[in-house]
């Protein structure tokens, strides 16, 4: 079984964001980056399949981006990926989902992957497109927003999460692209021995030009901080005083303490 997991590295969402000098993306300086949360479920699911098959699977972890994304690839390898593929691209922020999916498709086309995992969306751009476009480009079946995944032979039975707590059970044959939703599984933490093993694993690097031939179909004209519509009164300071202040406000503004 040949498995590809496509991951992205994104900034920590608790960061304070600033817009960059071009005004079209966030300033990457001073940000801490980590693996996109949704992609952790994707890596975990791939590793579980390999375990289910008694090791008879080969997992490639792919990420597109500047040098920093190697950290995320290595984490994926420490979680159980067999090999890393770094598609080197210093202009990641300007790529649209069409270009990213086309790049991955060009890499994957000749390699006959049986199963391709992605997160359902990235936490920074949040387009929710790359997996589904990739499936379309490769002619693979596509199932998105999975919270359950079961493989039997070459048939997958999956649970898709719909709105309002309803789920849909779907079934399809490999090859397929699937996109992972939060809660699909419990992603493991890489153990120290497994982190050590990463050094013995293959880490390939390619310039993005090897795969990318498409122009973007959308552009970001502008990025900006949202106008503060917030009506929140902000309280800061010493904890004990904050507690008193807050209780006084609750007494005045709500009926719950009366």
């Amino acid at each position, binding site marked *: 079984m040949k498995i590809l997991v496509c991951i992205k590295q994104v*900034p920590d*969402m*608790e960061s*304070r*964001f600033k817009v960059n000098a071009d005004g079209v993306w*966030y300033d990457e300086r001073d940000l801490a980056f980590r693996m996109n949360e949704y992609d952790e479920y994707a890596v975990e699911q791939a590793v579980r399949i390999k375990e289910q098959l008694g090791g008879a699977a080969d997992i490639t972890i792919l990420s597109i981006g500047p040098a920093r994304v190697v950290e995320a690839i290595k984490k994926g390898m420490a979680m159980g990926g067999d090999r890393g593929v770094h598609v080197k691209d210093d202009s990641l922020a300007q790529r649209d*989902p*069409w270009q990213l999916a086309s790049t991955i498709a060009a890499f994957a086309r000749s390699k006959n992957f049986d199963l391709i995992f992605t997160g*359902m969306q990235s936490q*920074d751009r*949040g*387009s*929710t*497109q790359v997996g*589904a476009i990739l*499936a*379309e480009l490769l002619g693979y*079946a*596509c199932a*998105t*927003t999975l919270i359950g995944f079961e493989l039997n032979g070459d048939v997958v039975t999956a649970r*898709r*999460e*719909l*709105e309002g*707590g*309803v*789920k*849909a*059970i*779907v*079934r*399809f*044959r490999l090859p397929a692209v699937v996109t992972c939703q*939060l*809660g699909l599984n*419990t992603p493991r933490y890489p153990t120290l021995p497994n982190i050590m093993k990463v050094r013995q694993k293959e880490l390939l690097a390619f310039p993005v030009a090897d795969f990318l031939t498409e122009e*973007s*179909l*959308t*552009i970001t*004209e502008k*990025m*900006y901080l*949202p106008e*503060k519509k*917030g009506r*929140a*009164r*902000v309280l800061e300071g010493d*904890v004990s005083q*904050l*507690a*008193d202040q*807050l*209780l006084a406000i609750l007494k005045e*503004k*709500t*009926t*719950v303490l009366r």
Partner: protein
Amino acid sequence: MKTLLICEYRQGKLLDVSYELLAFAERLGADKAMLLIGDESQAPKFGGKVYLADAGKYGEYNPDAHKQIVLEAARREQADLIVFVHSSYGWDLAPQVAASLRCAQVSEIVGVVESKFEVAACNAKLRRIATPKTPQAALTIQAGAFGYRGEAQGTPQIERIEIPAGPARIEFVGYEAAEKKELDLAKADVIVSAGRGVGKKDNVTAIAALAKALGGELGATRPVVDAGWVEHSHQVGSTGQVVSPKLYVACGVSGAIHHLAGMKNSEFIVAINKDKDAPIGEVADVLVVADVMQLVPALTAKLAK
């Protein structure tokens, strides 16, 4: 400009969120036609053209067939914009449609600014203007961002769509109903919710203690539920419960759109967060900038007095 608006339909019913597509098209000042893959009895109340394909024949969820139907309706309508709701249906189908047409897609539009599409980034801490470079485009709009005001009315002119039978690679097996709620959070006057910022499972006890001291119930965000710190019946949000208590206290909750969808109509909202910029500040009445595990026990202790 011509829009083709793709209705949402599930378990034999047109979903109300479909009307938000009309509100969006009106914001653009565009011409409107709709597509329903469903039953004719569920056709939207809309005095324009509705393309109709029978879900009895093509299935409620069958991406291969639905893609062909959307493409056929878009071709007949010569639609410039094919608009979906950003939902498990829309984000599944829209990219497949866009990729077949090699056209641009803009996802989860939250606003229209000078006729351009505004979308959120980085957990709503940033916004961007995303613009298609192709003449035709697929769009998805955020549910709730374009509220439909007024009573829907009108009788549609129905135009039927049939497509040749093709392979259906995704077999729809069935729906699984939402879990029965053991806890009806909607009845609580006070909800104190634990977000990932509480740090670990053991700390949830302190949040539950504050809920109790205020005579309320414990709520939770999804990651806290997924991690097994709190039962799913306590989850608030678009895939949990929708609540509007007299007081909602969000402890270590960032305020992601999916969480806000479940609690933003609460009467009074307090957020406790160490991040002054957390998006929860957009809906909160009071944002207390503090470490939740210091402030919450202090509050509970003072309430006990």
